[in-house]
């Protein structure tokens, strides 16, 4: 029972961080109808940024979080200006390729700047262990769940209850109609890239303490985000969050009974099953075309 609780906390912490990755991915997807393949590498960039900032600001990671959100939002704007806007009227494959290129540039840039070694970012609050009965729960795991929950909640508040959020949603749902109604669509797309990349940066900070960060860490994360969005419902924001949580819990749960290779195989098996039985995903499909 204690072990099951410990595994549940670990799975939730991992899922919460994956959820931020998937959230950023789906926001950009909705606003542009393009898959941002650099999302995993942006998570890595956020982790590396935390590693770089840690000696300059020798305080807990929670203090670094706003700085990382700001810097990564700036990087998101740059990404949109360089890799999306010049290609927005070209076939979608152009944006796929340009974001893949950005990802490779980020990977190699990180390798040059930081070296190939795995790095560790500071913990959000502390790296102690909470003892709840017989269960050892790392403080960082609890902090990841809380911080990711707050960020996802804040994103929901902005999108659901502010004028900016309404404009962002209008842009995501129908850019042409939004433009006709006076919504500055290009600006909204830029804001979406900034929010999506800030989410990636936050995920990078959250993951880079317990799970470390290397320049090549992004490849696996983009795959997880893609699966989460497919499972949750292509284009569905709550679907992306739930999909990410399910993936992490599935991985931890199945590997604790069988093995990690079995868990990985089963994950892709279930994904295939979902695509066959319920191709719209758990929360339905919000956009018409799957990339």
């Amino acid at each position, binding site marked *: 029972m204690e072990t099951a609780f410990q595994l549940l906390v670990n799975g939730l912490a991992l899922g919460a961080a994956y959820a931020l990755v998937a959230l950023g991915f789906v926001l950009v997807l909705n606003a542009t109808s393009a898959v941002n393949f650099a999302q995993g590498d942006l998570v890595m960039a956020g982790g590396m940024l935390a590693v770089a900032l840690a000696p300059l600001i020798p305080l807990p990671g929670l203090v670094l979080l706003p700085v990382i959100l700001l810097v990564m939002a700036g990087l998101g704007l740059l990404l949109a200006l360089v890799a999306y806007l010049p290609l927005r009227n070209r076939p979608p494959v152009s944006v796929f390729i340009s974001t893949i290129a950005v990802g490779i540039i980020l990977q190699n840039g990180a390798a040059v700047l930081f070296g*190939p070694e795995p790095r560790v970012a500071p913990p959000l609050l502390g790296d102690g262990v909470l003892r709840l009965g017989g269960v050892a729960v790392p403080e960082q795991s609890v902090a990841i769940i809380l911080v990711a929950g707050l960020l996802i909640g804040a994103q929901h508040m902005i999108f659901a209850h502010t004028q900016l959020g309404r404009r962002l949603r209008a842009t995501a749902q129908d850019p042409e109609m939004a433009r006709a109604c006076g919504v500055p669509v290009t600006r909204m797309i830029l804001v979406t890239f900034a929010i999506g990349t800030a989410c990636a940066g936050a995920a990078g900070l959250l993951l880079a303490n317990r799970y470390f960060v290397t320049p090549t860490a992004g490849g696996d994360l983009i795959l997880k985000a893609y699966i989460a969005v497919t499972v949750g419902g292509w284009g569905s924001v709550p679907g992306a969050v739930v999909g990410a949580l399910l993936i992490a819990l599935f991985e931890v749960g199945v590997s604790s009974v069988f093995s990690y290779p079995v868990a990985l195989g089963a994950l892709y098996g279930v994904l295939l099953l979902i695509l066959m039985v319920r191709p719209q995903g758990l929360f339905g499909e919000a956009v018409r075309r799957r990339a």
Partner: protein
Amino acid sequence: MRRLIPLLVGLLAAAGPARADGLSFPVLVPLTGFLSLEGTSQRNGALLALKEAPAGLVAASEVIDTGTSPEAAVTGLERAAGGGPVGAVAASMLGTQMLAMLPLAAELKLPLVTVSGTASITEQGNPWVFRFFPGDAVTKTAHARYVVEELKKTRPAVIYQTTAYGQSGKTHLEAAFRALGVNPVFQEGVDPAAKDLLPVLTKALSANPDVLVLHLHAGPTALLLRQAATSGLKIPVVAGSAMHQPSTAALLDPAELKGVCAETAASPVSGGSPAVAAFTESYRAAFGKEPDAFALGQYDGMRMVLAAVQAGAKSADDVRKALAAGRHDGLAMSYASDGKGNMAHSAVIVCYDGKTRIPALVKRYDNVTGVVK
């Protein structure tokens, strides 16, 4: 990076008309991709050896990043061979790249000096490959012997990586334990991308082992040790060679390393002799980081090549003959070929005391194969 540039510039400058005996020594290693950490160590070790070439011997060198694809390695080798007479090549430690380069090396008649651990590269009957890093047959024997003979443990739980590296280590560990009359109570592979290793740790501990034996890459080793420390693990851990890398220890608090040992070919940061300490100092000064066993193995390999040139080798074939027949007392160990190109036959065990990240050398297993005379 700032320290590396003058070294590279100096070595490339030497590639001009003043080449020693007309021979160059290209360095073809993975500097990008998933093996870039080890590839960078390889490059640094090779460059340091070339920089410290014996008096009167000026060695030329070109560094080519082979990435992680076999095609890039083959292209790199073709390019290096086209740049004038080559004495030997410091070649990638990535097994798939070595396997792709081997036929071309035989065709071009170029010795490949590597620290690749992939067993099959020296099982192709190719006389142009020389491995200056002990294979799993050596290191896993040392690994298992330390567990059984020194720690007196008989119920190991083995956690290995599902990659080719991990599978090979697991196979050799299994054989080594069997030879010692011990059967692991638990064995399971984990993917390098696995983020949470608590499930496998929990299952391993439920098999009631008396020692945890790891054969994982650097990141997963650190991740598992951190989760083990969080869970209050009470049994000793004897890890694979990835643990000895200073960059792996840097991921953990010294306290999380208490009771952890690891097998490796060498641990330069642990010292052991004035020559090793001097190597470590030179390496730090040149590259601004700590050397590991891969750097030292590649350094020793290139030193043996340069010693052959200094002793009169005039061509790549002369170098090959010297490597195949000679013996070299390197910093990590004494090297001699077993007839297949396996030059390294020793391993060491290092242990952490829980106070620092620098491990102590606790046991040497020299000449495990009996090849070195």
